[in-house]
């Protein structure tokens, strides 16, 4: 089962670390908030995604099962 990166926009405070750790899936908008590419993360990216999730200072990021109906 593959995973997707999800962000809780209420928790997110635009630290931007996720975009540095996982530029393959996360870019920042003009105000510094993450835009998430919903394509699944697998293989080597999965490890980087886990690091990005762990690094978020506000715990706004998570890995969700693909197709899970929420952010």
């Amino acid at each position, binding site marked *: 089962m593959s995973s997707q990166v999800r962000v*809780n*926009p*209420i928790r*997110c*405070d*635009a630290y931007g670390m996720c975009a540095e750790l996982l530029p393959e899936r996360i870019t920042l*908008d*003009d*105000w*510094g*908030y993450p*835009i998430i590419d919903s394509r699944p993360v697998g293989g080597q990216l999965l490890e980087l995604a886990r690091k990005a999730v762990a690094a978020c200072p506000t715990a706004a990021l998570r890995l969700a099962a693909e197709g899970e*109906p*929420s*952010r």
Partner: protein
Amino acid sequence: MIERASGIRLLDGPPTTTGSESLAEHQARLGARPSFRGGDLIAILEAAELRGRGGASFSTAQKWAAVRQRSRGNAVVVANGAETEPLSGKDRALMVLRPHLVLDGVLLAAEAVAASRAVLYISRAHEDAVRAMTSAIAERRGSDLPVPVTVVRAPRRYIAGQETAAIAHLNGGAARPTMVPPRPYDRGVDGRPTVVQNVETLAHAAVIARRGAAAYRSAGTQGATGTVLLTIAAAIHSPGVYELEGGSTIAQAVSAGGGATTSVAAVLVGGYFGRWVAAEDAWDLRLGVDVPLGSAALAIFPHGWCGVTQIAALVAFLARESARQCGPCEHGLASLAATTDELAGGRAKPRDAERLQRWIAQIAGRGACHHPDGAVVLLSSALRVFAADVNTHLRRGGCDRDQATLLPAPDWTIRGR
């Protein structure tokens, strides 16, 4: 058209000039509130194809079934009469004029989902509606009030009517949207399975419960069955609330409102959460079929008014009304508001217009609720419809048109019956 809808109209009954219909009048006209076994009414609403009238047009039967399935006799019904949309007056009018029809719908919903209580969530700005519903509840005590029904005043903020914001407020917090899941049908008021349903939808349910699905469906059209309450505002001879058949065209709505007062440039369909349509494309659009009903408010925008001033006023409102919880909404809408204001003031460069388009694409879908999505749909449709006005402002640093805006709320008077 009137014939097909006869007997299923929410505003059938005494003249609307006589105020709230009493319980005695209501029961003499429609009979006592029917009662259904188990979830039988849910199947009837499904057959009637009743959809929510709070803006999302979700299937009422599906919503109730989800709560019924989870309820252990402890579910909660929230009748949403917050009506924070500035251009809309229909929920307020309905509660003032036909409080017992709304209350019937509340009690039928409570029965169908096995609820132990119900709450009417009504804007604190609409004290007439609060009074009408409070009196209606008092009239029922000792006769037809199987579960406790209370009235809670909703904050005036635009976002307070959003369903998770309503639940947050009823749970003692600020009326701000929350992340889903948990969805209200899983965990809502006091953590219980909760139906949040617009008051007009509940009134339609009360009509369907009495007249049946077939009679209801005989009015309106596929995808927009029965009747719909519309608020028609701005350049119209008789602004106010009208009950039309579902799927009526914008031309029919304007005609019901006595026609436009002047030549029309565009129509805003669905209120501040809606979309703009150029007049020449608007007339034949069927409401709720070809164009989403949204809040069911229509604003008729005349030639001679400045579209850019209008855009800036609407975007400024939506930016002010952000709950400021999610960055893309708080900062994104603030940027849209600042730039549309520059555009209106004739200080914007073509580069700014390009930035608006980039931000529209960036902001969509990135809030916990749909507030930012509504703002970008409104703005992108406005930039298309008022493209010529935008160009004039960019090239000439402004225009000499009327700076009037749709911001003042219209009279909610019931006009069309």
